[in-house]
Every structure is written in structure tokens, then in C-alpha cells.
């Protein structure tokens, strides 16, 4: 059955019936290509979600002051709420069992200079807790520490790309840079998986920032890092209690939605993951449908091919082809085409996906689309298997019709 002569006969037949070979091969290749593409794109979408959330820790609440929208306890509406250093301490004390750290943030844009090089960067007045919140990785030196905050030092921790921009190939460690008119010493360089934007930031002690701004004690934003053990429901409870506590403290009506904003990263992640899961299920359905469509396509082609070849089969039988000869020839042809084109389609799909990389990131939120090779191969094998079964049924029928009936076919 698998002699060289058999294969030669099969190649010959395929080669001399190019259109037919092309059509059935194309159906299979396209089916696999679409399958691989769809699964890959879905994975790319999930990668994007992960990318956005992996750059920062997810056990975090962001507290942001707003403006009241209703009067309360003698205070008028439209009052601006502000956080102060004292709030950090109070939150830490009142919620200590839930909380790992409470970290302030004061964001300012600044022109930063080193010798002839200068550029605009975001500076973040922060404390040591920020390193966990942002998932920053130190490449050189250290992050802002307790001493810096306490002594209001002029130490700065710069992003990898800040170093690259301003220092070129030089080492920035220990050098002095001008940040918006004040001189800071570079004590650390960090990298961040969050991407270019995050690597173009500069951290300075928040107390130093406050000192520069007329020794104020105001804070833009409070980052609360809660203990991961409290879980999703614990985080939601913490969010509610913090909201209540701060509204009480700042004399904001409990009904006021605008006084304080709390962003819960875990909740957002959960929502997005749920969205990604739904998307993955839909895509799985469509991908499955593609395989089914491919199977139906190849079945139809096989039925057609066998029908078209009935007379030829009759001739072959008249001159001595056994039913087994007939079936094995048709079957091997179909297995050969589906295998070859199936794997071509698979490889084309994988190549296409890997060539995309982050090209679809900005417009379609698809990052590094790809497919598990095992899954791609399984899908291809399933298609080959069913393609063969699809070929077997009409082949068997053709092999059983009386040669004279097949010969009379036109």
C-alpha cells in the first residue's frame, strides 16, 4: 500500500489534476490558517490585557481627591478636597491589618538637563512604597528610601530611557542633573516592563517635591498597597471602608460621588479578564466552526472528486484495479493533500502571527499574537483525520459500484 510506486501514481494523479489538487489543498490550508489566526489574535488580545496590568502591581487602590458636588455640614458644594501628609499616617494607622504600605504621589512635568542634553520628563514625588506599586526593577543603585524622605534629599531615581536620552553611553550613577531648576544626584536607574513611557519617569522623594513647592504638605494621590491575602472581596470591603473613612474625615457627604475617587486595580483587572474570557470563548467557537467548515469543505470536494472520477474508476477496475486499490489511492491522495496543505496553512498562520508582534497593538490591542504549537498541530491533525474519513466514504462507495455502471457514467 505504501510502496514507492503507489506514491508515484498518487503524485502523478495529483500533479496532472492541478486545479482539483489546488482547490482541496486551498480549502484545508485556509481553514487551518483562519483557525491559527483567530486563536492567535485572541491570545494577542489577552497578552495586551496582561501587559497593561502586569506593569503595575494589582493589589493596589488609588485614592484621588476631587471636588464635592453637594453641601455638607456647613461646607458648600464645589469645595476642592486635598490630601495631606497627615492622611498617609492616619490611613496607615486605621487600616494597618489590611495594608502593606501607603505611598504618596506628586506628579509634575519638568525640563531635565544634563550638560547639553535636555528633555521633558514626568517626575514623581514618591516614597519607597512606589517601587512595589509600579513593579519597577532596579538596574543600578537603589530606589528612594526612608532617609531620602526624612531628610528631603536631592536624590533622584531615573528610568532606563532617561539615562539613555541624557547620558548616551555614559553611566548616570552619581551624576548631577537639573530637574526643573533644582539639582539632583542620580542614585538609581530602573527599568519597567510597562514600556517606554514608564521608563521615561524620574522618582524623587515626595518631601523634597513639597519643599520645593513652598514647603507644602499637600499630596496629589495616595497609593494604598493592600495585603494580597485579603483577596478580591477583602479589597472591595477595604475600598468601601476607606471611602467612608475619608469622606468622614474630609467632611464629604456619604452620598457625594465626586469628593473622593478610589480606583481599584484588582477590580479593573477582574473586569478585563472576564471580558477577555468571553472573547476567548467566542473566538474558540468561531475557530471550532472554521475547522468544521474546513471538514465540510474537504468532504464536499472529496464527494465531487470521486463523482467526477467515477468513469476513471470504472476504467481502472476494468483493467484490474481491486476495490482496495481504488480506496487506497483516493484516500492516500486526500491524506497527502490535507497533510501537506494543512501543515502549510499552519506554518503560514504561525509565521503570520509571529511577524505581527506589536504592530497591531495601537489600533487593535493585539500584542504578540501566537498559538500554542500543540494546539495548532492537533487542529491540523483533526482536519487531516476528518478529511480522510470524508474521503473514505465516497471512495468506498465508488470502489463498490459495479465496473460496468461506473464505465457507463459520463
Amino acid at each position, binding site marked *: 500500500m505504501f510502496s514507492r510506486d503507489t506514491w508515484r501514481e498518487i503524485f502523478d494523479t495529483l500533479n496532472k*489534476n492541478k486545479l482539483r489538487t489546488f482547490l482541496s489543498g486551498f480549502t484545508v490550508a485556509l481553514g487551518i490558517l483562519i483557525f491559527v489566526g483567530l486563536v492567535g489574535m485572541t491570545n494577542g488580545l489577552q497578552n495586551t490585557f496582561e501587559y497593561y496590568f502586569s506593569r503595575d502591581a494589582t493589589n493596589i487602590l488609588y485614592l484621588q481627591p476631587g471636588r464635592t458636588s453637594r453641601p455638607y455640614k456647613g461646607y458648600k458644594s464645589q469645595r476642592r478636597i486635598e490630601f495631606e501628609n497627615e492622611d498617609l499616617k492616619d490611613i496607615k494607622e486605621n487600616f494597618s491589618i489590611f495594608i502593606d504600605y501607603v505611598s504618596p504621589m506628586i506628579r509634575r512635568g519638568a525640563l531635565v538637563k544634563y550638560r547639553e542634553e535636555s528633555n521633558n520628563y514626568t517626575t514623581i514625588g514618591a516614597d519607597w512604597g512606589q517601587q512595589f506599586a509600579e513593579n519597577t526593577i532596579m538596574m543600578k543603585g537603589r530606589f528612594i528610601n526612608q532617609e531620602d524622605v526624612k531628610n528631603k534629599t536631592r536624590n533622584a531615581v531615573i528610568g532606563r530611557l532617561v539615562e539613555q536620552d541624557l547620558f548616551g553611553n555614559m553611566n548616570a550613577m552619581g551624576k548631577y542633573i537639573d530637574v526643573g531648576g533644582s539639582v539632583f544626584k542620580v542614585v538609581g536607574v530602573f527599568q519597567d516592563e510597562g514600556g517606554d513611557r514608564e521608563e521615561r519617569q524620574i522618582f524623587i522623594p515626595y518631601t523634597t517635591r513639597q519643599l520645593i513647592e513652598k514647603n507644602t504638605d499637600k499630596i496629589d494621590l495616595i497609593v494604598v498597597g493592600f495585603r494580597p491575602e485579603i483577596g478580591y472581596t477583602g479589597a472591595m470591603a477595604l475600598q468601601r471602608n476607606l471611602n467612608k473613612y475619608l469622606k468622614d474625615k474630609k467632611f464629604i457627604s456619604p452620598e457625594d460621588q465626586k469628593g473622593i475617587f478610589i480606583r481599584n486595580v484588582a477590580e479593573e483587572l477582574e473586569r478585563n479578564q472576564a471580558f477577555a474570557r468571553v472573547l476567548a470563548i467566542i473566538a474558540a467557537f468561531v475557530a471550532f466552526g472554521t475547522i468544521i467548515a474546513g471538514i465540510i469543505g474537504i468532504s464536499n470536494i472529496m464527494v465531487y472528486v470521486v463523482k467526477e472520477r467515477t468513469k476513471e474508476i470504472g476504467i481502472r477496475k476494468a483493467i484490474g484495479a481491486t*476495490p482496495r486499490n481504488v480506496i487506497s489511492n483516493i484516500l492516500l491522495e486526500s491524506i497527502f493533500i490535507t497533510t501537506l496543505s494543512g501543515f502549510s496553512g499552519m506554518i503560514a498562520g504561525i509565521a503570520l502571527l509571529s511577524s505581527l508582534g506589536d504592530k497591531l497593538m495601537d489600533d487593535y490591542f493585539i500584542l504578540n499574537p501566537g498559538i500554542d504549537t500543540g494546539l495548532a498541530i492537533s487542529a491540523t491533525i483533526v482536519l487531516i483525520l476528518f478529511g480522510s474519513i470524508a474521503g473514505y466514504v465516497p471512495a468506498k462507495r465508488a470502489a463498490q459500484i459495479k465496473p460496468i455502471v461506473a464505465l457507463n457514467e459520463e
Partner: protein
Amino acid sequence: MIEIKNLHKSYKMGSNALHVLKGIDFSVKEGELVAIMGSSGSGKSTLLNILGMLDVADEGEYNLDGMPIKNLNETKAANYRNKFLGFIFQSFNLINYKTALENVALPLYYQGMNRKKRQEKALKYLEQVGLKEWSHHLPSELSGGQKQRVAIARAMVTEPKVLLADELTGALDSKTSYEVMDLIQQINDKGNTILVVTHENDIAHMCKRIVYLRDGVIVKDEKVKQVRAKEYVQ
């Protein structure tokens, strides 16, 4: 070589059946060249197809070279066809995407002969029918007479016991028909047994014996003086 007794065949057409062969008794000895004559619809092809194991009889006995042909499964029938019989059809029945050589070599493929031997042998038989130079042409590039000669070479290539030809000149003009019959006579001269189905008198008289079929029975079976086709050629 061929012996049949009381052969019956009918075609079922919905509720009623068309009784085509109504008890045929006849035998052919080795080396004979027999014409089966009869008007269209008299059952000639039906008889030939049964002799060729392309179809089966409803009733009766059939012995080929002493071998009873009965209840053969498709695989056995295919092997017997391949080994013992060669077919020549009115419509040539060549495989259109295969060259003349490949068509002639195909029966040998089903015998399991290796490719090189197949092609050598096929070429030898193509040479015998005068088409050596055309071996790499597709059927579509050949004339009707050439196609039929390729078909004859294909039927001969397995060196069968019996050649069965159904209206082999039916699609050819009379000049080409005589050329093909000349070839058949030459093959018969070498001792091959040949059965030719025809409704044409002149073709029938180029055989050595004529069996007349009418309404499913043999009405006349006579030896004739063979007309040599060669006289009409050139």
C-alpha cells in the same frame, strides 16, 4: 476457452424487469476470432460484459479456461480481469490525463510489476500497434484510430487469454475501422482468442465465426470465410 450454459440476465427497471439474455449457450475455443452480431439492443454488450466479469449473470454457468466464474467478489473479479481478459471499448476509455505509455502500462501497475519493466513492456506493445513515436502523447492529442490502437495495446499488454472488443470500430470511419480490424486479425493470427461485438456486417465478416443474437437468444452460429482487412487498407 469460454463455455457458457443457459445464461440469463435481466435489468430491473422500477417494478418490471427487462429480460435481455434469455438462455444463451455457447462456447469459444482457443485461437478463435468470433463476431457477436445483432441489431442495437439485442443484448450483445450485456453478454460481453458478463463474459468480461464487468457484470454478473442472473442465472447460468460460465467457465473461463476451465475455471468456473461464479460468486466472485470484486477483488477476485478484478484480479481475473487483470490476468485473463483484455477489454477494448467503443469509446476507447483511456485515462485522459495519462500519456499513451502510461495508459498501456496501467494494467501492469495493478499486477505489481515494477515501473521500469512496466514501461519497457508497454513500449513494446505500443510499438506493435505502430505508436512507439506517440508514447508520450495524451489521448487528446491522438486521432480516434490511434486511441483505439492504444486501447488495443493496453488490452494486450497483460497477455490475456481472451480479448473482448465491444463495437471497437463504432467511433471510427471505415478506413480506420479496417486498419484496426487488420491489427485485430494480426493479433488473432498469433493465436489469441478474440470476441468482437458489432452490428456491422463487414466487420463481422472479418472474423472467422459469427454468432447472431436476436431478442436475447442466439439465432444463428456459423463459421465464415474470413475477409482479410488488409485488402481494404492502403
